[in-house]
């Protein structure tokens, strides 16, 4: 990692220059909610003016730029007695600006599955390799709990990461393209004063977290609480709508189906991100459903996030962004569910 400092006005020139020659995606304000608060989403931008660098949090994660909600995996063309298959996973290089540490950590988790896992996905790898990522720190929202998950800082998975130190950004440069490109701009080697500001900024962010979720020994704890009545309590609230998984930066479960074109001359294999809370998630050929009850489906979402993945990959899959909690109409959120489980456990012991 190489550290540099860039003034905010120079950083803007850097952004303009990136936007000029690349497809650039950044946080923009898309709506105002009923409490008059702005809603931000990652969208393609055509000028630095559109980017809201001081945005709070994006409404949905940036997952969809790497794992689209729907994607054609391959296309088939039928001839008289034969067929051809076409697979296209090349993408144009692009720039993602303004990712929060938790969002980059979420991509690092997805990397473990789709990049470095047993079955790497060329579709994912192509998108990941061709995306230049600029991270940006932020003051946590009252319900962010990424520090509990140790995802409030990030050390890899980006090209350059910016920490706001007032009139400048303290840059952590993590790739040679980023280093080379930044040479064209006025960047300086951090002074002692800059280092101090950076450390102060990190301290300030760390102590600004208002929500803590106790995740220590959660895997074994979840095992003990497998039959806990709290699953029914939260399951009764669940709408089976799949929203939690859709907005989650790491939920990656998907379904694949084959569709035949109306002209019967072509067909495609299509992927769609799915959710374990949806009724037929665990339905198998012949119609048997392993998880017909909504409380079981909800439970298994928590198990995958905090137990299953942890057992296999030694870390939970949740990054603590609480997007699921914010998006859930029924107010089902990790903090309350996990606290409830702990309370139930304490009462029983």
């Amino acid at each position: 990692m190489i550290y540099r400092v860039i003034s905010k006005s120079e950083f803007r020139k850097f952004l303009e220059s990136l936007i000029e020659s690349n497809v650039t995606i950044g946080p923009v304000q898309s709506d105002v909610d009923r409490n008059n608060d702005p809603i931000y989403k990652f969208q393609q931008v055509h000028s630095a003016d559109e980017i809201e660098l001081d945005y709070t949090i994006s409404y949905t994660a940036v997952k969809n730029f790497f794992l689209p909600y729907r994607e054609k995996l391959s296309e088939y063309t039928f001839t008289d007695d034969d067929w051809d298959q076409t697979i296209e996973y090349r993408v144009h290089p692009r720039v993602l600006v303004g990712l929060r540490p938790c969002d980059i950590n979420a991509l690092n988790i997805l990397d473990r599955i789709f990049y470095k896992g047993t079955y790497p996905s060329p579709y994912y790898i192509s998108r990941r390799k061709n995306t230049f990522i600029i991270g940006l720190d932020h003051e946590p929202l009252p319900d962010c709990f990424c520090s509990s998950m140790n995802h409030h800082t990030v050390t890899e998975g980006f090209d350059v990461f910016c920490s706001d130190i007032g009139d400048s950004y303290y840059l952590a440069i993590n790739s040679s393209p980023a280093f080379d490109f930044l040479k064209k701009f006025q960047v300086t080697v951090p002074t002692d004063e800059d280092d101090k500001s950076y450390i102060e900024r990190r301290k300030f962010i760390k102590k600004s977290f208002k929500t803590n979720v106790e995740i220590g020994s959660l895997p074994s704890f979840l095992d003990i609480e497998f039959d806990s009545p709290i699953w029914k309590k939260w399951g009764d609230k669940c709408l089976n709508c799949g929203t939690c998984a859709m907005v989650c930066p790491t939920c990656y479960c998907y379904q694949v189906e084959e569709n035949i074109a109306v002209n019967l001359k072509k067909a495609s294999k299509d992927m769609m991100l799915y959710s374990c809370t949806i009724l037929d998630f665990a339905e198998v050929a012949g119609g048997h459903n392993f998880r017909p009850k909504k409380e079981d489906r909800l439970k298994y979402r928590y198990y995958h996030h905090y137990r299953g993945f942890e057992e296999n990959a030694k870390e939970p899959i949740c990054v603590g962004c609480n997007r699921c909690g914010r998006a859930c109409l029924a107010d089902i959120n990790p903090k309350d569910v996990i606290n409830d489980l702990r309370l139930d456990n304490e009462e029983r012991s």
Partner: protein
Amino acid sequence: MKYLGLGPQKPKVGVFDFTCCEGCELQLANKETTLVDFLSLMEIVNFREISSDKGDDYEIALIEGSISRADEIERLKKIRERAKVLVAIGTCACFGGINSLKNRYPIDEVNREVYGEMPKETLEVKPVKEYVQVDLAIPGCPINKAEVERIIVDVVTKAEIKFPKYPVCVECKQHINTCLFDLGQFCLGPVTQAGCDAVCTSGKMGCLGCRGPFEAPNFEAFFDIAKEKGFSKDYIKERLSFFNAFSEVKDV
């Protein structure tokens, strides 16, 4: 294309309208880029909107519209006798649709309001399934042509016909829409069958549930949430009854 060694089966299709706006039939004739291919998958023997043929030898009968007159019942039953498969298309045929608003008032009053001194013979509005057996229901106001295309491809290739088992929320999130509840609006998306590609909510209009409930709606929790957000019982009931697609819900 052959699937499992079999070529496509080309069914004889008749399309019939009852009490409706014929918008669903129009949908069948829509989506021009694939229209020729779509029509090539079947033999249309009776379809007033696109053909002057008046054949009776259809295997599949597509029924649009609700049933609101005695002569409609008779005609519907005759179609049922002739067809091997009867499909209700659109919200009117599946649930009664907008026409069901009529059922809220005494039938004489309705008749007088519309026809004045020249009353017509008329009945309470009912969905097709109230009178004949319906083998397949394709809801929507109007029906989604892409979904109909998928179904007809399934029919000719003898594949299983499937509908989404999730609500509109999933498709709405795929479009990265802002949840309409966050904008202070009411939306039936969380309890409504997907398949419309969230067309209304993508246009920032709350779902009115034209496709009816999905397979696992949690009405109790949903109504609690809506009431907590300040929507009255009467308001929720009004929205649910817009298309009469939630008649199974007795109270909110």
